């Protein structure tokens, strides 16, 4: 049962990734794309967690944590760039 | 899987090469970034592909992927980061000094300016 649930979740987040990709490619403005990128990182964390459940390993936790941090920082950086030009002022 | 990875390497390389053939520094830097992704994947792939066998010793786990290419890639990532940082800074400096971000050397590099004659 858990296997099917996993496959379902894999499928959902994989598809979600594609939706994000679509929004990165076809978007009216930059902020949409940044949003899509942020969402992509979050979906990736989900996929990584699923992978960890699937393989029964906690080896990928550090990566997930880093993805979360990096997603946050880079989104803020992109947005700050749009807003101010200078991200460290 | 091998086909996917090698096609990705090829595409990243092609993109990188195309971008470094552009005439502005920023595009060239982007191209360098692409190339460095490509080379990192390439170097990594020389250890051959294995799924879920990280080279971290654990009880009861026998299969490990080749750790050496990974260590090499790590070194390569760090070095190319340093290089990229310098080239970005230098491109910025050239832009501020020269007023444009062209990559090509201006004619004044090879020919004396007429104003000085």
């Amino acid at each position, binding site marked *: 049962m858990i296997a099917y649930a996993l496959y379902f979740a894999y499928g959902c987040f994989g598809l979600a990734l594609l939706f994000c990709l679509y929004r990165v490619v076809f978007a009216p403005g930059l902020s949409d794309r940044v949003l899509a990128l942020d969402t992509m990182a979050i979906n990736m964390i989900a996929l990584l967690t699923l992978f960890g459940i699937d393989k029964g390993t906690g080896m990928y936790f550090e990566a997930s944590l880093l993805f979360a941090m990096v997603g946050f920082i880079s989104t803020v950086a*992109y947005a700050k760039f749009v807003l101010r030009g200078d991200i460290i002022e | 899987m091998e086909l996917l990875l090698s096609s990705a390497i090829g595409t990243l390389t092609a993109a990188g090469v195309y971008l470094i053939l552009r005439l502005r520094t920023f595009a060239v830097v982007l191209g360098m970034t692409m190339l460095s992704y490509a080379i990192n994947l390439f170097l990594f792939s020389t250890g051959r592909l294995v799924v879920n066998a990280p080279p971290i010793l654990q009880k009861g786990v026998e299969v490990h992927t080749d750790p050496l290419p*990974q260590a090499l890639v790590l070194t390569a990532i760090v070095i190319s980061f340093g290089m990229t940082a310098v080239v970005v800074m230098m491109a910025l400096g050239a832009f*501020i000094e020269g007023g444009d971000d062209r990559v090509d050397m201006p004619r004044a590099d090879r020919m004396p300016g007429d104003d000085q004659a």
Partner: protein
Amino acid sequence: MSPALIAVLPFIGALLPGLLIRSGRDVAAISCATATFVALLGLCLHIPAIMAGEVVTARFAWLPSLGLNAHFRIDGLGLLFGILILGIGLLIIAYARHYLSREDPVGVFYTYLMLFQGAMLGIVLSDNILLLLVFWELTSLSSFLLIGYWKHLPEGRQGARMALTVTGMGGLAMIAGMLILGNIAGSFDIGDILQAREAIQASPYYLPALLLILLGAFTKSAQFPFHFWLPHAMAAPTPVSAYLHSATMVKAGLFLMARLWPVLSGTPEWFYIVATTGLVTMVLAAWIAIFRDDLKSLLAFSTVSHLGLITMLLGFGTEAAAVAAVFHIINHATFKAALFMTAGIIDHETGTRSIARLGGLRRLMPVTFVIGTVAALSMAGIPPLNGFLSKELMLEEATHAAWQGSPVLVAAMATLGALFSVCYSLRFVWQVFFGPERQDYPHRPHDPGFGLWCAPALLVVLVVLIGLFPAGMAGWLVEASASAVTGTAQHPHLTLWHGVTPALMLSITALVGGALLLALNRRLLAMRAAMAWLDAKAIFDAVTRAATCAAGVFTDRLTNGSMSRAFAAFSLTVVLCGFWAFSTGGWQGATRPMLPVQPVPLVGWVALMVATCCMVAFHRHRILALVLVGIIGLMVSVSFIYLSAPDLALTQISVEVVTVILLLLALNFLPKFTVIDSRDRKRGMDAFVATLTGLGFGALAYVIMRSDFAFSPISEYMLANSYRLGGGDNVVNVILVDFRGYDTFGEITVLGIAALTIFALTETLLAGASGRRLRNWVHDSRRAGDRHPLMLVVVTRLVLPIALVVGLYIFLRGHNMPGGGFVAGLVVAVALVSQYMASGFAWAQERQKINYHALIGAGVIAAGLTGIGAWFAGLPFLSSTYGYVKLPGLEEFELASAMGFDLGVFLCVVGAVMLALNSLSRIARQAGATVNLDPMDIDPSKEARR
């Protein structure tokens, strides 16, 4: 005296003027003269031995493995030339002392002159053809300096360059020729080569060697068609012309032909090349000389003509001709040097060398007149002067020579040459000394002081004496040198009167014809004007200018500063060479099965491919391109995780975010969009190159992944011993900090240097003009109102400490789990950056000053010290150890010395990243940003407290 010492003496002499010049001009001259005299004396001491048929040698090893050795020899030929070089050199030194003016730097002149003398002497005393080459080229160089001695004259510059180029060309050809010759003979020693006549002439390389060597000889001796440089070398001061261009250097070519005569001559090739060239040169140059207005130019072409004469004689290949050649070398040196000095005196005293402005000097300068006339008559070949003697011998030999079966051709041409020679000689005498006195000389002419005329007078005395008593005066020298040239004992019978021979008839013809020709001079001048277009200098200039221009255009077009050309060349070279190498080797086909493709990785692959393609398509929109870089980086690091490389993923993703921040900082100033400035055609070509490279690289990766290792990789040892010997479970980390810690040491150094470079560049930028430009920077985009939004500041107050804890965790766990000093450093750096983003760099720096320089230095030193620490245990650099430590209250934990190393990595990474980002943001602050006093723009609580 050792031949080597004799050869070295002039070089020692060359140093003296420089050392003694403060003592005055005379001291310089006397010191040089002394050196020359001593050398001459040393040479003369060997005369008895040489007359006895001995060869005096001195041998020093220099570069034995090449065959280049300092081997010297004095035989008859060397003696002859040595006496000429040193004897005339002595006279020139004396003459130049009085000739040069007060403004001329005399010390430099004498230094150059002595350098030249040494080089020339070296040529004639060398017993090794490679050594000879060295001196040969040295004469070219020193003559370059001498010709260009008067730096203010453009003619000097051009003449020097021309001489160097032409003789240099010959010298280079000779290098090849000599190497071939030496390799055939099996030795580069002249003594050995002279024994190898059969082998050399039988060798298939004989003709190439001959041609190459002759090219050297002909250019040096100004043989047609390389005769043009010599007259232009006359821009040199007259002593130089007299020395180099009449008596010595131009005779180096003749010397070489004479030196190698025993092994090279006697073949049809030799005859047709050498004799014909000599003949043509003799006639042509004499013809030209008739019409020259400049005295020195006339003498120069006459010299060319006489050199042609001697060349021709050598080319005949008979022993008698060789004797005649040697004799004429002596005679020509005496009268021509005298003539040059005469010309110099005239120039010196009248202020002009133009024949058209001279005339009637007979009474004004009687001494000069006598000297010049006697020498010129000798040049014309009028008895009883020495020029007559050797010319008779020449004509005699010419009558014996058959050219392509025609017995008269050579004789007729030789007579013609002699006729021209008479003509220009008489013209020299007639138009300079005779005729009415003029009133328009630039200076009032009178005879110079004794110092200036004694040298030519001495030579003229020799001219007469040799003419009258040839056997007594020069017979011994001719005998010795001719024997050396021919390799067999010669006993030439030199007399003034040979009886009525065909040669005498030809001689008389020449004399009469020459005089007649002079009478017709005016009409000839008109004729000559009609063919003035054939000016070799113009051709040379045109050729060099065209070559320079072509080289300029070629270089400029090829190396035009285009980066994309450089990259395209790089890419194509790599792909084509790689493909060639691969396809010419064997590949046994795929040996590894493929991993199955799962749907989710496929999605990742799609995302990566789409993002990459979009990146290319949208790269002009720079911020968008950066967002796409973010996606690509994310996908790449996820693939690392999927393919069992968590450490790589951590590093890749954290490096990527720092890179993006860096690029954003730079992009703040750079244009936000890339303009299109390449044409469709270029883009098409670029796409082609890119695709080709991509295909090649992808294919290579595919082949690798489908092939097995040919040998078991060394990493198996690492997997097996990582824990046992390195004390860590994370094999990648153990490799990084232990197995290959030295790599990592280099790697953090790279990072540190990168940051230092960025810092240094920033400082330079801020200090200079760009600093001012930055202060007046106008931002190209509208900016939002708040810089330090409250929410970000508040959240960062939590995120920063948490991130530091995470960094610490990653650092400590790295040895056994994914992580390590590098990633930890990046995490901490990113956390600090987030603090700076939230509250601004200035505020944050003010609150807590972190010395990033110190962090970098400390990091590298910490890593280095960990490595050096091993020395104290007698172990190599970077040897590690580990153990388990139990502290009260804490759990037992592992402490590896490699962790000290990792700490160095950590510090260096933090320092480098922060220094780089700090530098970049300083540029932004220079560009007019004000500094905040508060961590956040809006703080309602502050207002409430008020």
